[in-house]
């Protein structure tokens, strides 16, 4: 019997606000322990929470970006549990009236892991439905010491958005693609930096398996607190495998909460919060409901960005870019903006895209601000390359100089004597010389070894100190060699 997995995700995202969700303490990573706290987030008696409107707007914006229905009325509830990472013994969350309901995220091919992009699952264009998006407060950070635990409440009360999906996913790769897509959308909306190192995206996954073709769900197990997209893929792979092995050998899956040990590549049952599924939610009497129509919603709509998928198809259509080129540009909105500005100054946006993705990105690695090149110079450089004045190596050279000291690229090329020789008569001389000097390669080529032409090309490039147009040489050599 073959089995399939049924997977649902709960994605927790730290929002990019200046302050916490219910008090004015700074929302800041890496500060001295317990230095970003006040009576509200320490749960001291008599303190009253007041919601941060920026966090509410960002959650509504996320809902808009993911096609959710924004509820006109939302409220906050207390989720009760006894665990020292929250000083109040409850976490303020949203239970039955979240800010956003429903929604949908499509999985583009390039969101899948590289090794899976050619598989049918990556090409299917699957849509994953969302159950809801709600806003809650994050909990403190615990450190496990030898005989006790130490708590830092700096993170307690910072805004955390939870995106809950339907159990629409069937493979670890789809989960990977969903998280990659969500991360990109959130960055577009400037809702979160989604920095994994800082734990800004954490994920709980629910997994069960069932025989292919059946409808009923198997018993699910939950893996909590996965903190990177690739860890989610690895953990799912492992868990699906072990559930299938268990079920197909006649065993039954027991409902359980697990922790993933990424270093060891195994899941470990958690003993915490065992009975805590009884959270005894009730409306937080300290907080009024929130009405989203009016200013909150208008403000979220005003901040609505062009979404990644829209940008990709626009880049493809406007500039004739490939799916891959459009995706790489769209994954980096400032770069895409820069490309579009430069594209106004070139006749050949495709060459510009190649320059951007191959050379410019490489240079950016070690240059602090390559976008200091005026975009029109960058566009002009693309023209020099596309009309054959410069070959691609020379184009790279000019680009490197442009980053140091921006000037019109034509001037740089002339000064450095960096013009490509495209004059056929001149090139033909060099090609004849190459043929005369390399009888062996000529014989090889004529004997059927097409690659032998490369050593002749190399000869010409050397003679011209790299300034010959390689395309032209190739054509010339071929026609000369075919001469009877």
């Amino acid at each position, binding site marked *: 019997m073959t089995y399939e997995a049924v997977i649902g995700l709960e994605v927790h995202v730290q929002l990019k*606000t*200046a*302050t916490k969700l219910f*008090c*004015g*303490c*700074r929302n800041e990573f890496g500060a*001295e*322990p*317990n*230095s*970003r*706290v*006040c*009576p509200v987030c*320490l749960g001291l008696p008599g303190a009253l929470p*007041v*919601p*941060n*409107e*920026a*966090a*509410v707007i960002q959650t509504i914006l996320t809902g808009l970006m993911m096609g959710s229905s924004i509820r006109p*009325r939302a*409220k906050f509830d207390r989720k009760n*549990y*006894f*665990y*020292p*990472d929250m000083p109040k013994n409850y976490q303020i969350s949203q239970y039955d009236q979240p800010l956003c309901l429903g929604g949908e995220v499509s999985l583009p091919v390039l969101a899948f892991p590289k090794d899976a992009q050619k598989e049918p699952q990556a090409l299917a264009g699957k849509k994953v439905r969302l159950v809801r998006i709600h806003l809650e407060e994050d909990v403190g950070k*615990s*450190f*496990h*010491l030898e*005989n*006790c*635990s*130490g*708590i*830092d*409440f700096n993170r307690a009360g910072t805004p955390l958005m939870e995106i809950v999906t339907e159990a629409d996913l069937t493979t670890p790769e789809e989960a990977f693609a969903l998280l990659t897509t969500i991360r990109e959308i959130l960055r577009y909306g400037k809702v979160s930096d989604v920095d994994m190192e800082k734990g800004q995206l954490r994920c709980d996954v629910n997994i069960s398996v069932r025989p292919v073709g059946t409808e009923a769900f198997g018993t699910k197990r939950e893996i909590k607190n996965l903190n990177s997209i690739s860890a989610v893929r690895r953990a799912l792979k492992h868990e699906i495998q072990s559930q299938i092995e268990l079920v197909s050998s006649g065993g039954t899956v027991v409902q359980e909460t697990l*922790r993933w040990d990424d270093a060891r590549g195994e899941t470990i049952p*958690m*003993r*915490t919060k065992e*009975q*805590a599924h*009884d959270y005894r939610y009730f409306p937080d009497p300290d907080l*009024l*409901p*929130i*009405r989203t129509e009016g200013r*909150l919603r208008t403000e979220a709509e005003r901040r609505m960005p062009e979404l990644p998928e829209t940008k990709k198809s626009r880049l493809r259509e406007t500039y004739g870019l490939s799916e891959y080129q459009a995706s790489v540009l769209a994954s980096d909105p400032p770069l895409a903006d820069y490309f579009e500005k430069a594209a106004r100054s070139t006749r050949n946006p495709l060459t510009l895209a190649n320059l951007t993705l191959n050379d410019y990105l490489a240079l950016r690695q070690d240059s602090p601000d390559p976008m200091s090149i005026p975009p029109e110079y960058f566009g002009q450089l693309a023209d020099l390359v596309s009309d054959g004045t410069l070959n691609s190596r020379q184009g790279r050279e000019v680009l490197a100089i442009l980053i140091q000291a921006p000037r019109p690229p034509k001037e740089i090329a002339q000064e450095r004597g960096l013009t490509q020789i495209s004059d056929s008569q001149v090139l033909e001389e060099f090609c004849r010389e190459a043929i005369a000097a390399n009888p062996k390669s000529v014989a090889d080529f004529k004997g059927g070894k097409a690659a032998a032409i490369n050593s002749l090309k190399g000869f010409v490039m050397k003679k011209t100190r790299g300034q010959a147009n390689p395309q032209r040489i190739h054509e010339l050599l071929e026609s000369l060699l075919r001469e009877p």
Partner: protein
Amino acid sequence: MDHSVPTVGIDVAYVAGLARLRLSPEEIETFGNQLEQVLAYVKKLEEVDVQDVVLAGEEKGFQNRLRLDLALPELSPNEALENAPQQRGGLFLVPRIIE
């Protein structure tokens, strides 16, 4: 126990477990009775006619009560930890958390 008020039915041992409280059988009995009385008293609120009461947030002229995303002064770590039964290295110490 006053039997004129309706009983609520509360599993004291279970709730005590959730709250990490260790109670003796006598305490479970005592607290059970007391909680029953308190909750039964509160339950009387269900008798109030709320048909004409407007739900919070639904009243005319309702305004959201939100704050701007602006920082306010925090406590210093010393102030924050002042009443902690145990502390070390700027952290609140608690019994070891088992994962």
